[in-house]
């Protein structure tokens, strides 16, 4: 018996060795090639382009760090960075608060819980371009719904997209509408795996709902929430589609996020060198965030797989 088992293991080992000769590397090679073709290669090309001079979209030769100097001296660039930062901070904060609140509400034993959840996540399944269309129709000064609502309330109709401040806030509202469900869904998934006893226990002891939430629920979902916030922040920095449809960055530069400015610089003004330099600076600025994301996501993914 024992001899047989060993020979079986032995044969398995022979088979393993045969594969070890290179087969897994052969299997991963095409995947790595594909990924490198759309990331490493363009990134190198981007670095190259950032050092070159372009006129009317044609490369005229290298000019050292001029593009970087020009970007760093460009007020519009800094303005766009500032608008982006403000947009991301306000939107992600609101999404986190609302998303957590909704998740806690939905984690109760509700009637129609499944149906409610389905209804709530629809906004984030809509293509971001279409989200832009949806809100164009809501904000429109002639056919929209916001102006009539204000009129009914006896207030001056705001013409949301025609003024800097309201256009910016309107954009934040769109992002909150679209992505609060993401935070909600992630936190809900996190709440699902929690032990109920400490929470029930605290309730029985007469702790208020807020106490229970801050003392028991929040610490337990914190790791999950962190993943959600980091992912959302990275995505929000790249926001483009909705703005392109809603305001194209205007009025003035009030909603010109960095992605919009980068797009305009490259594809409207054909300043590929300057645009590349700008985007590389953004990438460097984001790298801390990316590293944090990789750490937390890999860690969480490992734990999730280990627990399963």
């Amino acid at each position: 018996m024992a001899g047989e088992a060993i020979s079986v293991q032995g044969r398995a080992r022979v088979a393993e060795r045969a594969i070890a000769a290179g087969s897994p590397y052969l299997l991963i090679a095409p995947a790595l090639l594909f990924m490198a073709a759309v990331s490493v290669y363009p990134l190198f090309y981007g670095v190259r382009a950032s050092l070159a001079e372009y006129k009317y979209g044609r490369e005229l030769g290298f000019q050292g760090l001029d593009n970087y100097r020009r970007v760093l001296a460009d007020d519009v660039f800094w303005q766009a960075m500032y608008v982006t930062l403000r947009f991301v901070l306000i939107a992600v904060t609101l999404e986190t608060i609302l998303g957590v609140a909704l998740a806690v509400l939905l984690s109760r034993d509700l009637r129609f819980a499944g149906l409610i959840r389905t209804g709530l996540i629809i906004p984030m399944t809509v293509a971001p371009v279409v989200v832009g269309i949806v809100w164009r129709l809501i904000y429109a000064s002639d056919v929209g719904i916001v102006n009539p609502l204000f009129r009914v309330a006896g207030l001056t109709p705001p013409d949301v997209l025609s003024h800097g401040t309201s256009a910016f806030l309107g954009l934040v509202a769109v992002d909150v509408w679209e992505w609060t469900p993401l935070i909600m869904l992630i936190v809900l998934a996190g709440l699902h795996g929690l032990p109920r006893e400490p929470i029930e226990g605290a309730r029985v002891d007469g702790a208020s709902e807020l106490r229970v939430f801050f003392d028991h629920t929040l610490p337990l979902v914190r790791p999950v929430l962190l993943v959600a916030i980091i992912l959302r922040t990275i995505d929000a920095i790249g926001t483009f589609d909705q703005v392109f449809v809603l305001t194209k960055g205007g009025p003035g530069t009030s909603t010109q996020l960095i992605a919009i400015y980068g797009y305009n610089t490259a594809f409207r003004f054909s300043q590929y060198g300057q645009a590349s330099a700008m985007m590389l600076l953004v990438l460097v600025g984001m790298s801390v965030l990316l590293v944090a994301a990789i750490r937390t996501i890999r860690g969480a993914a490992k734990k999730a797989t280990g627990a399963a």
Partner: protein
Amino acid sequence: MRSRTRTVSMYGAIVLAVVIALFPIWWMIVTSFKQPVDIYSGVSLVPQHFTMDNYAELFRDRHFGSYLGNSLVVVALSVGISLAVGTLGAYALTRSTIGERIRRLSLVGALVVRMVPPILLAIPLYIVLGKLGLLDTKLGLIFVYAGLNVSLVVWMMESYLGEIPPEIEEAALVDGDTPLSALRRIVLPLAAPGMVATAIFSVIVTYNEFLLALSFTSTPNSQTITVGVSTLIGKIQIEWGPMAAAGVIGAVPIIVFALLVQRHFVRGLTLGAIK
């Protein structure tokens, strides 16, 4: 008494949230079935005179047939390629015989490709595609989307395949399977639900993609549906009816699709960090 007020306010908050989530989409759908006169005649939550004209116009005058066709071709091919390439790669990563270095490199690489904002890739990729003569072609888009999707597939399938106990596969190898036939006969059937979820998630991401398609294509021969939708904006006067109809066409297939795989949604969106 107190608990009753609490229940009422709880349901009140939820109803409010659902209305806020769904009303804007309802408004777009309603507008898409209205005649121009009715669109301008004030707020009405249902079409006063139901019409399909807005949709007809999109397909008759605005190339929506070809946008949809392009999206179909681009999505099908790029997702198909990336599933094949990515699943094989992910399978290799779950095998103990692969070096830890290359494993880490592949997984971290996949995450980074997935997370870098598309605008950062758009500019250099535009120059590269231009050199290859692939601007304004479906082939160029397929190539770019396949590359981006491979990262998603590698990352997600690695986690699904990793859940399959290695003993099952080892038993197959002992029975005389080669690694590839073991993959096909034993491992893939077990990972099928994960693969379906990955495929559908890739379809959603690809169909919804806008910035790269906008940057790399310029004619209805290769433009996808999201770019098509955006062509209705920016003219001197916006035609609200057709624009709303375009939005509906751009959104509905994916809404339906996404709701079908809700269960897998969190995992895809969080790149497997949360199930």
